[in-house]
């Protein structure tokens, strides 16, 4: 046995992704570089040849010529029965989109880590913004928002247990903020190989997705006429999403039992919700910060709670409704813009929709907040202000006004004119 180079200690988020993929015993990795994903695939190119792994695992690593080919490579390898992994971000994910739809249509189970990055236009942006992953929200992939370094590792380890479950067979895209998590380091614990293998789904010949098999020649992806089963096949994808909800929960429960740590029930992570009067719903790193905001606000006498949305697709309707019915003053904070949607935010729109369908949640007050786009910081004060807005709403019965409220949505951190824009590099620009 070779002693692993790293088992425990400060680790960059992207390296946590790389180690997790190796510990989950992947077979094929395809890669194309894009900031802020690069260090995931760089680390993997190193790990595949490291002594610890090379003696027990045979991992194929291919540097493809674009993300489209990366996606196609995963599709091919998955068809042939391999456990597959890659990572990408922003424009890369957009370019891979056609293949992502194929993965779900063909019911293939890769895990793809996303280091979210602002979408191009106007100008390039490489910082945290979930617009990239949310552009695929209805493609059939499962989407999880990750908030910490350890959670990156743990989510990828759990990933294949969910995607390869015979009732699911859909890809999972765990997403975390570019740079915020990808390039910072925090303590991370790896799971020793034997223990990890006891947890991770064993690979068997009975794998449902071994399609390319000389023993059982089949034809896949042929033309389906309108009167044939196209509708039914598409509904099957939706059904698989619905079936994934309890499977994600079970996987998290089993993980917690095995390793003593967990993230809520796998779908949502509540914080001080028991006695809360107002509720902040968010996702990713900002939602973790909201827990600090809750603590600070409680010091000032505001009884707030926070709920972190961890799994977005499938949508954890019941879990969200449970808390919303208990705490009907809700702020939904999003770090992505859904242009032209009812609130500007995909998730607040979804939450409003589930409330509408439940008679007991119909009167809940859902207040949409959007901020932090393209990596702009969201400050603790701003989140505390969200809590205050909810209290004003609770006391006066109507949503209060703020300078940064437009079209009934609050645009957190907006440059409104009161705020002085700090010019970076004052010295350089001198008197210009």
């Amino acid at each position, binding site marked *: 046995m070779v002693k692993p180079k790293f088992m425990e200690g400060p680790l960059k988020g992207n390296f946590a992704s790389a180690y997790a993929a190796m510990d989950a015993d992947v077979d094929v990795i395809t*890669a*194309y*570089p*894009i*900031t802020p994903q*690069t*260090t995931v*695939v*760089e680390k993997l*190119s*190193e790990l595949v*040849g490291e002594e610890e792994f090379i003696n027990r695992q045979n991992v194929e690593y291919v*540097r493809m*010529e*674009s*993300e489209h080919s990366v996606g196609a490579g995963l599709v091919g390898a998955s068809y042939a029965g391999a456990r597959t992994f890659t990572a990408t971000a922003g*424009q890369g994910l957009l*370019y891979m989109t056609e293949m992502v739809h194929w993965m779900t249509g063909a019911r293939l189970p890769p895990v793809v880590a996303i280091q979210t990055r602002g979408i*191009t236009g106007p100008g*390039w942006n490489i910082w945290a913004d979930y617009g990239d992953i949310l552009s695929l929200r209805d493609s059939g992939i499962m989407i999880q928002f990750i908030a910490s370094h350890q959670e990156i590792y743990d989510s990828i380890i759990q990933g294949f247990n969910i995607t390869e479950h015979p009732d699911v067979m859909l890809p999972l895209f765990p997403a975390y903020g570019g740079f915020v998590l990808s390039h910072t380091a925090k303590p991370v614990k790896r799971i020793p190989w034997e223990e990890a293998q006891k947890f991770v789904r064993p690979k068997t010949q009975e794998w449902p997705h071994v399609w390319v098999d000389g023993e059982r020649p089949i034809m896949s992806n042929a033309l389906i006429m309108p009167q044939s089963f196209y509708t039914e096949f598409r509904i099957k994808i939706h059904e698989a999403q619905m079936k994934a909800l309890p499977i994600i929960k079970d996987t998290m429960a089993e993980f917690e039992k095995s390793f003593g740590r967990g993230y809520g029930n796998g779908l949502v992570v509540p914080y001080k919700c028991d006695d809360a009067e107002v509720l902040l719903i968010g996702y990713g790193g900002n939602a973790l910060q909201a827990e600090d905001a809750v603590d600070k606000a409680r010091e000032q006498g505001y009884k707030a709670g926070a709920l972190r949305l961890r799994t977005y697709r499938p949508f954890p309707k019941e879990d969200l409704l449970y808390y919303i019915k208990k705490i009907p003053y809700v702020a939904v904070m999003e770090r992505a813009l859904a242009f032209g949607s009812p609130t500007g935010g995909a998730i607040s729109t979804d939450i409003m929709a589930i409330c509408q369908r439940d008679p007991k949640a119909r009167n809940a007050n859902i207040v949409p907040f959007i901020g932090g786009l393209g990596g702009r910081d969201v400050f603790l004060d701003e989140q505390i202000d969200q809590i205050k807005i909810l209290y004003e709403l609770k006391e006066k019965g109507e949503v209060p006004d703020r300078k940064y409220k437009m079209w009934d949505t609050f645009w957190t951190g907006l440059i409104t004119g009161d705020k002085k824009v700090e010019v970076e590099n004052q*010295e*350089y620009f*001198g008197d*210009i």
Partner: protein
Amino acid sequence: MSYSAPRGKENITPHPYGTNTQMHKLMGFPFTMFCKGCGYGSIAQAICRVFKEENLQEELFPFIVNIGCYSSMPTVLPGKTFMTLHGRGIAVATGVKMANPKLKPISIHGDGDLLSIGTNHFLHGARRNVDMIVILLNNNIYGMTGGQLAPTTPMGSKTSTTPYRYGEEPIDAVELAKVSGATYIARWNTSTIRDFMKSFKKALHHKGFSFIEIVSQCPTQFGHKNNLPKALDGFNFIKNNSIRINKAKDMSPEELKGKYIIGEHLDIDRPTLWDRKSQIIEKLKD
């Protein structure tokens, strides 16, 4: 790429050609974000010189800049520039050309950009003989994203994705341009900038798809990983591995392995996409 901009105006020696750049027009001084010793600066300067010497009307020669370290070139390029997505420049230029045939787009690419993610546009732009210029800045690596293996990286090089030097066979862009149907093809390097300028001038007057590759040193990403950390190391490495085309004619494929054959590789005439269309229109009118 680095952001080692000089602090304060007083440190900047005004460059004779700097006055042609967009940055000079906006800010009153030239400025680049290239690393020290990067070859891209000299190339941009050469382009500026040609624009000045030829007295070109900037509006007619829009630069279409793709994604890589050269994406910061607009600050030191003359004329109108706009950025596209990674690899899409030639398709965008085709659109520009079709919308306004008076323009002659100049698309600036890197090796990662043109020879991996954007290769299909390269083949089809050349095949259609779109009247435009493609400049390939070949630094043998994905520079901007941190030095990963590119389709041009010499076999056995160390990169951030080939820590064990497990390489792949590199691509030869000039050969690719030839078989795809480009009508003017040249390759130069950073030690033959004057030749590059001559080629660029020729391409400006050439009607059809012109392709010029220029091999450039990248001390930061390629150099550091491959024992060529200083600008001059990379510069000399490329220089010593380059062979003029007339000399290369008498050499065997084994002798030419891993060498850059520099010079003018092709200069022919063939109807452009626009020509063929006008011919058909004329015919239909008769």
